[in-house]
């Protein structure tokens, strides 16, 4: 494996969890629900993935458990914010705190225990292409999922009737309701999709990124995913750019340090955030398009008047 290949591989690893969590949150927000609990759902996915993989000895069981627990955990959020119409911001924050707490408690027995690694699946022939072969076609199942998700979410949102319905609910829930769309059903499903994605991203952390359980191991990646969605103005392709840019600059700054360049490391550490925000703000500078893409009902609870 050459130097460039190794570096690119590190970047993919850094970007994948961000991309998956952000895509899930994007769908949730497009339905008009702001779920600040991404970090909490991710950490639930991480502990569930780790625990189930270890107990069964099969990392794929862990992946499914991660997705399942992420979705299950988000169901709690959906019940509170959609059915009981609680404040979405406060509920989301509570979900994060709860997730960190529960996962810490659950994970106490797993501290200091090496986990089960999710191994890459090499696709014959394609994985032999120089440079990009190993990078794109000799990856683990979660990476492939992230690519499928990217295209899936794009097609769903902008090319399907169901996607249109979801966006309608997110833009104006009163009108959508008047048209006979079940706002709460759409939102339940969107929130759970977001939860499943966050759980998958969390499972990636504990099964691929670092194969171990460490309390609080997502270390703020859920918040970065949340920020990516906003700065990408709710467009899946821009989320992709944002996630990979963040990952790439994050890895590049480590390399710059290791090469011994005389740049203050504090500045380099801040660089991924700066670069990602600047680039995404520049591509989203068209105000009219940004307004069109912003879900107008985002963060507002819906109480049907009849």
């Amino acid at each position, binding site marked *: 494996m050459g*130097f460039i290949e*190794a*570096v690119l591989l*590190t970047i993919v*690893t*850094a970007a994948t*969890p961000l991309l998956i969590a952000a895509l899930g949150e994007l769908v949730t927000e497009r339905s008009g629900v702001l779920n600040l609990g991404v970090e909490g759902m991710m950490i639930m996915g991480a502990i569930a993935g780790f625990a189930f993989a270890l107990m069964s000895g099969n990392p794929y069981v862990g992946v499914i458990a991660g997705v399942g627990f992420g979705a299950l955990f988000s169901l709690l959020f959906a019940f509170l914010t959609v059915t009981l119409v609680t404040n979405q911001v406060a509920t989301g924050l509570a979900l994060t*705190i*709860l997730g*960190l*707490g*529960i996962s*810490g*408690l659950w*994970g*106490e027995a797993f*501290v*200091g*225990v*090496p986990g089960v690694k999710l191994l890459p699946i090499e696709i014959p022939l394609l994985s032999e292409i120089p440079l990009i072969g190993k990078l794109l076609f000799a990856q683990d199942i979660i990476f492939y999922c992230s690519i499928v998700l990217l295209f899936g979410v794009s097609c769903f949102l902008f090319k399907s009737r169901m996607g249109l319905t979801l966006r309608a609910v997110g833009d104006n829930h009163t009108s959508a309701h008047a048209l006979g769309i079940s706002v709460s059903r759409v939102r339940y499903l969107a929130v759970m999709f977001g939860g499943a994605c966050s759980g998958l991203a969390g499972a990636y*952390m504990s099964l691929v*990124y*670092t*194969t*171990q*359980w*460490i*309390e*609080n*191991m*997502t*270390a*703020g*990646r859920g918040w970065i995913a949340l920020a990516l969605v906003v700065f990408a103005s709710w467009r899946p392709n821009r989320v992709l750019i944002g996630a990979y840019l963040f990952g790439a600059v*994050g*890895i590049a700054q*480590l*390399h710059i*340090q*290791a*090469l*011994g360049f*005389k740049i*203050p*490391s*504090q500045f*380099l*550490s801040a660089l991924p955030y700066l670069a990602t925000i600047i680039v995404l703000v520049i591509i989203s500078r068209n105000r009219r398009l940004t307004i069109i893409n912003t879900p107008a009902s985002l963060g507002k609870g819906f109480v049907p008047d009849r």
Partner: protein
Amino acid sequence: MKKILAALLGLGLSTFAFGGAAQAADEKACFIYVGPIGDFGWSYQHDQGRLAVEKELGVQTAYQESVEEGADAERAIERFARSGCNIIFTTSFGYMEPTNKVAKKFPDVKFEHATGFKRDSDNVSTYSSKFYQGRYIQGQIAAKVSEKGVAGYIASFPIPEVVRGINAFILGAQTVNPDFKLKVVWVNTWFDPGKEADAAKTLIDQGADIITQHTDSTAAMQVAEERGIKAFGQASDMIKFGPKSQLTAIIDDWAPYYVERVKALKDGTWASQDVWHGMDHGSVAMAPYTNMPDDVAALAQATQDKITANTFEPFTGPIMKQDGSEWLKDGEKADIGTLLGMNFYVKGVDDQLPN
């Protein structure tokens, strides 16, 4: 966060159940940790010390984990002080200012701050361990074992504790190989397993075949194991994560100190002090020397014995600073003040120290 709830709940229960003057003599020891107790590193080891206090002295304890350095820390410490803690251990360098600030407001409560140097009032003690002694040994091992003569160092924040470790490591390495190279990467966090793993991969990709870290999780050790290179554990024995990789690990053993101090409080002999114990007191221990040839293990053990017997001090001249100017003359030993406030590299470190 669950710990906050538990602490609050425990606090409420304790005032409810044990409140009143009859129980006023009961001691309560409280601990503030910078990371989660499940990090299997720094905070984990402090918590082992807390458990020892509970077990050996039967004293009631409480703790709060993952407390951010800064304003959050002040709130957390003050809450403990108000809640009836008699002695509060604040276990990270960044708690220095908040600890001293709260200590002034609560003269009856004793405060113990780890790895700092400020004692503004006489109810504050500072304590630390000479981890750099272990780093020196690691440097010697690294230079012996490394094939490429390059080690990678994952550093957290540019505070004296970390800088001292880097310097001790390179000094140890230079006794074996004067041209030994050390690549340093600052991750600006104590705890982010993903980022620590990224830093380890970066250093390996750039040619380091030994990884050592001054961050708190086991992530880097696991990367080393996967890539088939050698590494040093940090704060606790990480052999399970690197059965073929771990050369040794510096183990922080805080239990003797914590038990001693809480006991002093019970006996009424507690007084403000500044201690810096090393291998001689057992507060710095080394994990078994593994995955290395016998002669290297013997060398490491010999150095460890000398340090433990206090017949050798790693920071003994001649030592030059990074810019080539002289720091210590031949045979001269570094004074404690300079070591505690160390803010410069010695010669041979291939990095610019962040301000």
